[in-house]
């Protein structure tokens, strides 16, 4: 065990492991690229959906359950399914990651919207604000902390799961996990896993600090 961790230290600190197309720097960049793009696509789907059902109060049951379905889907299974239907491309990976990220975004956006005090909403309407004005000037700003939490959760989940890109021959930090497992190189497996965990934690810290800074004037 001690030997393993010592070798892990060597693996992580050796300069040769950081450079080149199979180097850690490149794999890390790929991993972040996959994760950010998948989260952005998920946000483009989940945010409008969450805002819509939160604002109208209609279709919440269906939308929440449908999006939670995405969370229940086995990610690797989904990758294989889309792969077999569509062939070898990044599409299966993005479909699976987006399916994983959308539920967190939809449910948190919806929760943020429903948490807006109905009296505030009524007052806004009473002052003559139109529907879209209520949505963008009252509800959205008030719901923003929870929406941000949803995005943060989604991104962390995606970062932790983006290793599956390597399952269908692509890059990212999963390359070390899958190649290491296949070659019985436990140091490589552990190195990949540790790197994924570290960037997930770092991103979470970064975003929660940002969140705290942005909403520092608010109580709760």
């Amino acid at each position: 065990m001690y030997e393993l961790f010592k070798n892990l230290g060597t693996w992580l600190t050796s300069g040769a492991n950081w450079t080149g197309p199979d180097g850690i720097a490149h794999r890390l960049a790929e991993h972040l690229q996959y994760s950010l793009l998948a989260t952005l696509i998920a946000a483009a789907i989940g945010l409008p959906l969450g805002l819509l059902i939160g604002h109208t109060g209609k279709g919440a049951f269906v939308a929440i359950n449908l999006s939670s379905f995405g969370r229940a889907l086995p990610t690797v299974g989904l990758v294989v399914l889309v792969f077999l239907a569509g062939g070898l491309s990044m599409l299966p990976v993005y479909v699976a990651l987006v399916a994983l990220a959308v539920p967190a975004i939809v449910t948190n956006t919806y929760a943020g919207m429903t948490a807006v005090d109905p009296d505030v909403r009524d007052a806004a309407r009473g002052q003559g604000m139109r529907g879209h004005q209520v949505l963008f000037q009252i509800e959205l700003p008030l719901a923003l902390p929870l929406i941000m939490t949803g995005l943060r959760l989604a991104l962390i989940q995606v970062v932790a799961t983006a290793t599956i890109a390597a399952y269908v021959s692509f890059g990212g930090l999963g390359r070390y996990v899958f190649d290491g497992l296949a070659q019985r190189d436990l140091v490589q497996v552990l190195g990949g896993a540790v790197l994924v965990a570290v960037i997930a934690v770092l991103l979470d810290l970064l975003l929660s600090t940002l969140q705290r800074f942005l909403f520092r004037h608010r109580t709760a």
Partner: protein
Amino acid sequence: MNRRTLLGGLFAAASVPALSACASGITSLDSQGSASGGGGSSKGGVTIGTANFTENQVLGYLYAAVLQQAGVKVKVRPNLGTREIVIPALKSGDIDLLPEYQGALLNYLAPKDNSAEPGTMQNALTLAMPGGLQVLPYGQAADSDCFVVTRETARKYGLTTLADLAKQNGKLVIGAAPEVKKRRVGAIGLKDVYGVEFKEFKSLDSDGPLVKGALKKGDVDVANLFTTDTDIAANDWVVLSDPKNLIPSQHIVPLIADRKADDRVRKALARLGNVLTTAQLTQLNSQVDNDKKDPEDVANAYAKQHGLA
């Protein structure tokens, strides 16, 4: 799922058995000599173990069928796991007999040995065998690695052997399990022995839906599969021949504990080995995998049909 997983499980442990194999090589030769003289006895019955994939289970039940026919009491313990689990179980006496593959077993016992021809491998196996265990003569069926291309690709580039791949250096994409990138029976050996350089190596799975899907769709040109895969014939794929014997022979060979290896057992297993062909074994695998039949029923039906049980 297949032989490669079984083999892969062992790299971590490989150094220890390899050492003990060197130390006991001589003893094992001696014990084999005495065993063939009738040192073992199957009177108390033989326990057959199998690894955790279809073909190995089918083979285990085939062993059971022919041994029963020879009057030996048998018990089958299917699905035990990887070689890491089954070989210690064989040594400790939990099981007595195991269907094995020449190349994969040799790689486990003596990873540096590059023998590829069946006869040489059988000798190498005998030398590397730990004390108390022995391999019986290999059968004609084999489940080897192979490199296949689609019929169109073969025609387009004029491919019939692995050597032909070198004429298309830098043009073709190969799909295989990640470990094949660093294996001798893979990218490294293809380069060293045949001078083949691929445009790209795509890490997919080991003879699974990904690599076969990619070959079908043309996302990869060459795929690493196993010879007993029924999809090869079903899709009319072309297996590239290996004139320089890069790919080790993977003839099926019974691995047995000396204590049970008597003449009755030897004769019964040798008969099965002489009858069962690669094509037939492929067919049996397909009955289990595609037709969802029980491996024991499939094995018994085969044994009956060929007068082995």
